[in-house]
């Protein structure tokens, strides 16, 4: 009955000192289910999606596929928009990471599409220490939504986190499986 929660992410500076830690989503299929269930999700792209290779692709390629599978609006932080435009995608919104987190705290915010506050926010490619701070903010001040850190370094302050996946190959497999599951499962509602 000793409660065990995820406390040790990849980076030591992000060790959880606290009592509320992420649920680790070990299986991509479960990750897909979480995403699938969301009614008004949002996907936040951090600066690192642009230049982080995942096998033969870039992180942004997978992130985009995930977003597109459920028409999840994208918030492009930092200078990500530039790359997205190159890829012929227009982000639904452009805020820097801390700004979008600031809006997400407000339960009456209308969301990036004006359709109401988001219920699930995915994060990928945000610098890990900064992401962890933003996730801490949301954990404490945005009880109205859940966060999912799609990051192989793992994030204890998220509601859902990927386990630490050290090997590049495994990470690609995880992402590919996630994309695939989202592609095969019929969207809820």
């Amino acid at each position, binding site marked *: 009955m000793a409660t065990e929660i995820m406390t040790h992410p*990849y*980076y*030591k*500076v992000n060790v*959880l*000192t*606290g*009592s*509320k830690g992420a649920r680790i989503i070990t299986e991509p299929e479960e990750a897909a289910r979480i995403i699938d269930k969301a009614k008004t999700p949002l996907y936040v792209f*951090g*600066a690192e999606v642009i230049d982080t290779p995942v096998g033969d692709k870039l992180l942004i390629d997978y992130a985009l596929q995930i977003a597109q599978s459920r028409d999840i609006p994208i918030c492009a*932080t*930092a*200078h990500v*928009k*530039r790359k997205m*435009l190159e890829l012929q995608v227009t982000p639904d*919104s*452009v805020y*820097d*990471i*801390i*700004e979008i*987190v*600031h*809006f997400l*705290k*407000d339960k009456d*915010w209308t969301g990036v599409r004006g359709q109401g506050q988001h219920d699930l926010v995915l994060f990928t490619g*945000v*610098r*890990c*220490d*900064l992401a962890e*701070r*933003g996730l*801490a*903010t949301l*954990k*404490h*001040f945005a*009880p109205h939504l859940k966060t999912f850190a799609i990051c192989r370094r793992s994030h204890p302050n998220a509601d859902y986190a990927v386990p630490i996946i*050290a090997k590049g190959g495994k990470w690609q497999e995880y992402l590919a499986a996630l994309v695939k599951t989202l592609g095969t499962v019929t969207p809820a509602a």
Partner: protein
Amino acid sequence: MRKGKMKEEEIKKTIKTEDGWEPVGPTPMPSLTDLRNWDFRLLQTYEPFYAPFCDLCCLCTFGKCDLTEDRKGACGIDIATQQARWILICCLMGTAAHGAHGRHMIDYLIEKHGEDFKIDLGSQVNVEAPIIRTVLGLKPETLGDLKKAIAYVEDEMIHLVSATHMGQEGNYKDFESKAFHAGMLDHVALEAADIAQIVGFGYPTSVADTPLVDLGWSSVNQEKPTIVVVGHNALVANSIVDYLRQNGLNDQVELAGLCCTALDMTRYDKGAKVIGPLSRQRFFLKTGYADVIVTDEQCVVTDIPQMAKDAGAALVAVSDKICYGLPNCSEKDVDQVFKMVVDEEQQVLILDADKAAEIAVRAAMALAPKRRELKKILTKEEATKLAAKCRGTCEACNRACANLLPINNAVFKTAQGDFTDLGKLFLRCIGCAKCEEACVNGIPILKLMQTAADGDTYKIRTGRGPIHDVEIRKVGSPIVLGTIPGVVLFAGCSNFPQDIYDVAWLAEELARRKYIVCLSGCSAMAAAMSKDEEGRTIYEKFPPEFDAGCIVNVGSCVSNAHVVGAAIKIANIFATLPNRANFELISDYILNRVGACGVVWGPYSQKALAIGTGAVRWGIPVVLGPHGSKYRRLFMSKKELDDWTVINGRTAELVDTKEPTPEHMMVVTETKERALITIIKQCFRRNDTPPGRGIKLNSYISAYKQLIGTLPDDLQNFVRTEKDIPIVYKREVISYLKEIGWQPKPVLSLPTIIGTYDTKVPIEATIK
């Protein structure tokens, strides 16, 4: 407590009310709650944003208390208030560091020159202490007056520290108001400390083109006996300079420094060398080049005693803040201490500047000949060999890295004899040594970096101190109109997320766009570490006068005061607003009319937090690098969703400007690209004239296009009328604005928030 009559009399005496340089404004020597309404007004627009670092509070023995999910501590505190309390504690550490530093400096100089030693900042500076004038209402004329300023800081501090005790303040807004107070006090301390050292040591003042001095670890001549001073208080360093001069040893002994002591020492002696910022402390000390290490105070890594021992160097600690458990030899005979240091290899504490200086020099000269062998860095072969055990796979180093760097690959490549990646890594390394400590194979990664690092020497301009009144007269109008697009100060520490070159890049981008660019402390050093194709650093490329397109090194951390001072002087000298004891009036002016912005790209210290928090109270927005999120608190608006109503100073009517400027008061940005855009934006002011706004928008649009590829996504927020649109982008912008249904907004020439909250300042005071 409300001030009573006697207290008021006392204040009048302290600030010499009879001294009629200006009438005394409403808040002479403000205490804890005197500016609270102003603070609350700021907080109304700029909500605190908290990023808790911990779910718990562990401050008293009722804890630990779990503060998640609306839980309260045993004392009743909630998570937001706890964060705010923490911020206050940290700000106080910063304020105290500067305040104690100032007190020490002033007391020392008073011993040397007497209380009545005159403050004379040269022919170009008449408004000698804009911060002290505005906050206290005192025009300091002597060192004794500066002491009064510090005494005021001390008096207020105890109340602020008290408020952090369990069962005291229970509301986050009040904690923030107190943190603002701490920040403002910090600025008072900064100004007092720097003025004192400028006049007391005869640092440059009233000149803009101060000397260019050498910077970089390779600038240290390891053939000579070498003393390295580390810290923030150049007092002992200057005594060493004196001792060398008096004994004709200048040429025989190498004197170099790390952190602000280095910068301040070069203001005293342009022959001294600057090794680099905080991030270079361990890196350099591990080279063994130093024969004697002298630690003073602040930002001194605490394992220097061990490093000194490992390097066979002598250690002389000279501050009561950092005693390392060492024997106090202050009262001992110099020869006896010399023996302890040189023969018995003891590390010592010496709290007497002259004695410490003599020991340092004599020990360096005695030790240098014996230490030749110890001054070697690894050859590539040795380094390759040491790295050999690394397979690059365990990543223990990466996981420990405070800057999240990919060390494994770099070390692995080093093992193959390829030093490129390690060299690059070095430019992003903040010198925490955690990788080394974590390495499962005990690879001395910092030592490998010494081999990988380039050995260039750079030029940095020594700190110039206060901005001249005449400069202010010249730039005041274009700044307030907006035609000089902004004044940007790069302050603080070297906890950079990315390359050490980032600051140089940002500074140059802004200088090119005709911003007034100032730097200080570690940022000023880091910015020197980048050369153009012709081998010039930005200090050599851009003019040193405080004017559009300049690059100004104001000096060390305490010199930051002068940039805030410049903003005040714009209100006071250019706009002739009275500043004496007139904090709100001046800050309102800055907030609404002076396009200034502070940048701390590598925020790490509590001092930088205090400085930044103080800046916000003055109405100066602050942009932080990503590590700044670990400060746990920012101040942000909800942009166009907020209420941006201000008062038209001319008509005293409320006007909904619909314009989110300045947009945030303290914000973190992730990348240098985003930082540039944000800095530019934070320089917008409601007061901008259409041509001024046009120039600012021109910068904004050009940078946005350059870095993100389109027109700014929030451009509509900042175009008030078509007149604001820069010509070059006119067509494109108009078509965009149409597309998104933009509506014109009011333009105010005399915007103010005075009058939108309960204050003693009459609206009329804002239009002079």
